[in-house]
């Protein structure tokens, strides 16, 4: 504080809050509450549990490192979005947005910081899940399966990294669009559980719908990322792009526009 009472604020010596610091703070905020920390720990515990079960129950020829990686990727992909949802919706549900956007009034910078934090978190959890997959493979070897450490590059990129990145973005889209923790979590399960089931029932009843489904339902379109040779065909990529626009790009754009405009009360 200056000793003389100047009627203006001299801002020349004050730099903006650097993005690295904003992102670091957002990462901290994702893990510094009981809810956030235990959710992250629970996801990893669940991955561990599923790996152990898989090591005991899967056929011996499906117990390579690649298989374990696929399993942990699927579990992660399912729950990562919720961690992201908590990071975004708490600003409204817990009303912390009042402080967050007072300390950084340029909201778009906070949005970028949250994206960076979300992806950093996803990478950290993926690395830990890979380590757990190593453990699972070793366990399978102890149980008598042959050692197969080869990893299909397509599985690693499409089934593990890309699928989780999509999950992070889906979490963002739902969170920013609904801006309410319980609603966003329910919305996410409706999107990821109920919707694919409804679509597969409809597809079973009507062969015509089965052809249309991957074009309009994002979960269905993502299946080639985790199945077969983990490599979508040209048509399957097109289906990913079309359904992804409907379920991911449009909601994300609307959601971020909303986050930039709403009044935090």
């Amino acid at each position, binding site marked *: 504080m200056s000793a003389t009472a100047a*009627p203006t604020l001299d801002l020349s010596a004050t730099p903006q809050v650097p993005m690295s610091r904003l992102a*670091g703070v957002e990462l901290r*905020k994702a893990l*510094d509450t009981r809810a956030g920390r235990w959710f992250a720990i629970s996801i990893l515990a669940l991955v561990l549990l599923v790996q152990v079960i898989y090591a005991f129950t899967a056929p011996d020829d499906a117990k390579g490192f690649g298989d374990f990686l696929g399993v942990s990727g699927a579990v992660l992909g399912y729950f990562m979005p919720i961690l992201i949802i908590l990071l975004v919706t708490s600003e409204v549900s817990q*009303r*912390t947005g009042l*402080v967050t*956007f007072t300390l950084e009034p340029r909201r778009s910078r906070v949005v970028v910081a949250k994206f960076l934090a979300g992806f950093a978190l996803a990478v950290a959890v993926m690395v830990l899940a890979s380590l757990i997959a190593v453990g699972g493979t070793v366990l399978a070897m102890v149980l008598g399966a042959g050692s197969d450490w080869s990893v299909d590059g397509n599985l690693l990129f499409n089934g593990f990294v890309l699928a989780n990145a999509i999950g992070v973005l889906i979490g963002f889209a739902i969170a920013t669009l609904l801006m309410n923790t319980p609603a966003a979590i329910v919305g996410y399960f409706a999107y990821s559980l109920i919707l694919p089931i409804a679509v597969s029932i409809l597809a079973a009843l009507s062969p015509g719908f089965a052809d249309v489904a991957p074009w309009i339902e994002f979960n269905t379109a993502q299946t080639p990322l985790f199945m077969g040779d983990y490599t979508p065909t040209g048509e399957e990529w097109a289906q990913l792009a079309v359904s992804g626009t409907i379920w991911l790009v449009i909601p994300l754009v609307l959601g971020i526009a909303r986050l930039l405009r709403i009044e935090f009360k």
Partner: protein
Amino acid sequence: MIEVSGLTKTYGGFRAVDDVSFRCEPGQVTGFLGPNGAGKTTTMRVMAGLTPATAGDARIGGHHYRDIPNPGLHVGVLLDASAQHVGRTGREVLTIGARTMGLPDSRVEEMLEMVSLSPTEAKRRVRNYSLGMRQRLGIAHALLGDPSVLILDEPANGLDPAGIRWMRDLLRSYAERGGTVLLSSHLLNEVELIADVMVVIGNGRIVAQGDKLSLLAMDSDVSALASSLDDEALAAELRQRGFNVSLEGEGVRAGCAPEEVGRAALAAGVVLTDLRTGAAGLEDLFLQLTAETQRDDLTEGALA
């Protein structure tokens, strides 16, 4: 330092803030006073860049809040002490603020000490804090970056009398060091204790502003209350001097300044035992100024 000019905020057809203009000077504590829903919080939210103004302008040190880099270092804002993640500890709330502003963690300890939150309390989650403790935490958060301007919405709400005294001393010494303070309240006696200058708002409009004396001067009915060893003689002397006099309670109410009563007592040789202004006082003035916006009809005798 803070300059609000022609600020208007409408929600649909509702004018929450209607052409509000005032200034807050460095070295002074400005009290922003008004009944619930008068537009205090909306005005402060516009100042902190959280709500866009429909018309008009709020500037801090010549800048819009949004244009201030790392604003926590320049303007301390407390809009709602309850707007904190209830799952974080008090210390964690301050740590997040300090990290965002780029301050060392030692600053957190300094602030905790300054607002008298003990290490044990700082380890507890905000969920378990009383409103008074949340206010202390919020004030600590506002002061983290050693800003030169403080904007506090209802900071005394939930504080006990000792807490209000503590806050008065804190804000006073802050203003004496050259800081600018704007604090809102719907309770006159809080503001009266803490503020040098008052801005009174009702129904989104400024109804009065100035220091305590100039506000009191708005009360046009000059009167004095006196009691003496011989009220009859005093009353007679005052009547002779052409003032309205009535015997009231234990003494005399005269339609003149206390000074005139003193002169009359001197001339009549009557010993005064009590002499004070009979003006309505700030509280009556406040109710009168904001009468149209009060939710409850306080017309005298309404309850009788």
